[in-house]
């Protein structure tokens, strides 16, 4: 019996080993090496001396790097809050409308999800053309309907650049949280909704007091995924505003800033793996810590199954 038990354990270990090796090799080792690199100075592209926390000091408090870091972090947080409101708020409403199974809801379900399957690079490049101040569809359209004064260099001014990219991101991704919310809503027992209706609940009351609390598990997933996505935001600002966070850092986020620091830029930025690794470590810590705490807090909201 004992031998049988040992054999079983060995068998399980053997089954787990390949996956563990892959995770170790491709996840744990790179993260650990980024931690290690962050404590060294770099002579060009070669690792030089151990310098303790100097890279972290530079990235957080050295000028102008500290200002750049906090500017990028602030933009990441703006992206997160805006996406929560614009993208996920819209997604919730869309899901609610789709739930009502109005005529044509199947078509709309597909139509809303369609942009999600497009590549971010294609969506970004397409919207960059739409937003071109000179040839772009958006400004041309505004001019055509007599709204000349509304025509803006959307991606060229600090007041509108980040907002424009957030809008495009929301357009691109809104289908995904909508689908998650819809799935959450469809899991709610019909009896609960019917009971609420019998008690005289209108759409607003039903949404606030019944559906919103009952889709808590979907909300947890959406919030955490949006947070991680916003903190790691890269493709959309890279395609639409370039690696420098043009104009003058208005669209700079930690992902772009990290990439520029690690690999340099055509604008004359030099490579520094030390500072870049320190940035990566900080990003990792912020995302990991916030995600863990947030998941716990949001899970508490969820009703037991």
């Amino acid at each position, binding site marked *: 019996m004992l031998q049988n038990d040992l054999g079983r354990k060995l068998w399980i270990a053997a089954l787990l080993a390949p996956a563990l090796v892959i995770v170790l090799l491709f996840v744990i080792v790179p993260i650990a090496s980024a931690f290690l690199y962050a404590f060294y100075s770099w*002579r060009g*592209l070669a690792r030089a001396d151990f310098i303790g926390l100097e890279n972290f000091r530079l990235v957080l408090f050295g000028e*102008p790097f500290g200002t750049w870091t906090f500017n990028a972090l602030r933009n990441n947080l703006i992206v997160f809050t805006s996406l929560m409101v614009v993208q996920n708020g819209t997604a919730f409403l869309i899901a609610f409308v789709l739930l009502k199974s109005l005529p044509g809801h199947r078509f709309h379900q597909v139509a809303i999800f369609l942009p999600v399957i497009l590549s971010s690079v294609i969506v970004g490049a397409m919207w960059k053309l739409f937003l071109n*101040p000179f040839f772009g569809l958006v400004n041309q359209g505004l001019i055509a309907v007599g709204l000349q004064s509304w025509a803006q*260099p959307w*991606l060229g001014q600090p007041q509108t650049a980040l907002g424009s990219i957030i809008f495009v991101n929301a357009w691109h991704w809104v289908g995904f949280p909508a689908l998650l919310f819809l799935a959450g809503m469809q899991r709610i027992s019909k009896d609960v909704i019917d009971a609420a209706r019998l008690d005289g609940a209108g759409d607003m009351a039903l949404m606030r007091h019944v559906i919103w609390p009952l889709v808590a598990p979907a909300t947890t997933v959406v919030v955490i995924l949006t947070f991680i996505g916003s903190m790691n935001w890269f493709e959309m600002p890279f395609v639409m505003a370039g690696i420098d966070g*043009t104009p*003058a850092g208005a669209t700079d986020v930690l992902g772009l800033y990290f990439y520029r620091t690690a690999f340099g830029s*055509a604008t004359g930025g*030099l490579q520094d793996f030390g500072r870049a690794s320190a940035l990566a470590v900080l990003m990792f810590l912020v995302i990991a810590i916030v995600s863990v705490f947030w998941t716990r807090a949001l899970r508490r909201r969820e009703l037991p199954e």
Partner: protein
Amino acid sequence: MTHTINRRTALTALGAAGAALATGIRPAAAQSTELSFWTWRQEDRTQYAELFGMFTRDNPGIRFAFQGFEPQNYGTALSTALAAGRGPDVIHIRAYGGLEQFSKAGYLEPLSPQTVPELANYTPSALASVTDRSDRKPYAVPFASQTLGIFYNRDVLSRNGVQPPETWDQLIAACKALKDKGVIPLANGMATAFMAEIFTAALTLPLHGKAFNDDLVAGKATFEDPRYVGALAKLLELREYMPPGFTGIDYPTMQQLFLSGRAAMFVGGSFEIANFRRQNANLPMEFMAPPAPTAGAPRLVPVFYDGGYAVNAKSDKKEAALKLIRFFSTPAFGNKFTELLGNISPIAGVRIADPMLARVAELNKTSGDHITLVHFRYQSPTGSELLTAGVQKLMGGSATPAQVAKEVTDGIATYHAPFRRG
């Protein structure tokens, strides 16, 4: 019959043996060294094939593997390959600080007059662009000089009765006349960061003059010098002559505005010549020096070197690679390079047949350094990064010239002692 067949068989066998011998011998005789060459100039593949052809005629044993990369990703691809102990045998490398970060890491083979006697074919300023300042050794041979100035559309100007401007006031008057006729005077926008720096460098050099450059390099002045702040302030006068929404106009859009004739002028670098011609062979374009502050003052053009050809220190074909680098430094190569690629080779004694390139070479006689690139791109934050963000703010109206000058100075002062106050 049998006899014939036998003879024929024997002959065939002999022939086959001969062929086998020949194929066996051929690779041995050719040594078949394959040199890999990486570049961010992927569009130059056919021209490089011809340039390599010139080399292989005299060195039949060497073949080439050309690999082009997207310019934005070239640094990433190259540095990761070199860090892994691989990478190409011959490397197209950027100049100044862009070269130093590779040479400092020991990835490039140092060159000397012993290994590459042809280093004598370059001027000191050309060699300085590929020299590591810490050990004063060149690590590449420079490949092209670039000149900044203004492109203009001859037909658009003459159709609107405008003469190519020679002074700043004439530039403003020309812009006004063009705008009144419904033409966009300047194609330039600010949305592509590196073009913001080029725009600034091209127009400010004649305004602040060479003496400022000398003082800056000698540590006797900072970017907050009134000469530089004054030059930045002048740029603001151009805002109304740039395309509508110019803060959001990116590099491809500004190129298209000029190439389509919708904009009359384009502030840029001589590296555009070949590209513009490729896109619109009939474009009646000319290249001129930026305007002088006053009549009679020199119209200085900013000049810099684009980069060079380096040998990978870990290459196991160093001898062949060095042979190629030496060939890349000969006037014969320089002539062909200039002819094929429309860039000015910095090799002494190069003949320039193309009239526009000859004019650029002539303008180079009244030139100064592209100051942020040539002198302040060695440490982070680089002068280029700081200036780019500053100029985007300046032209967008969210910073004054003095604020931009202060930001650039303060950023560089973090590692450059002469810029520190008191």
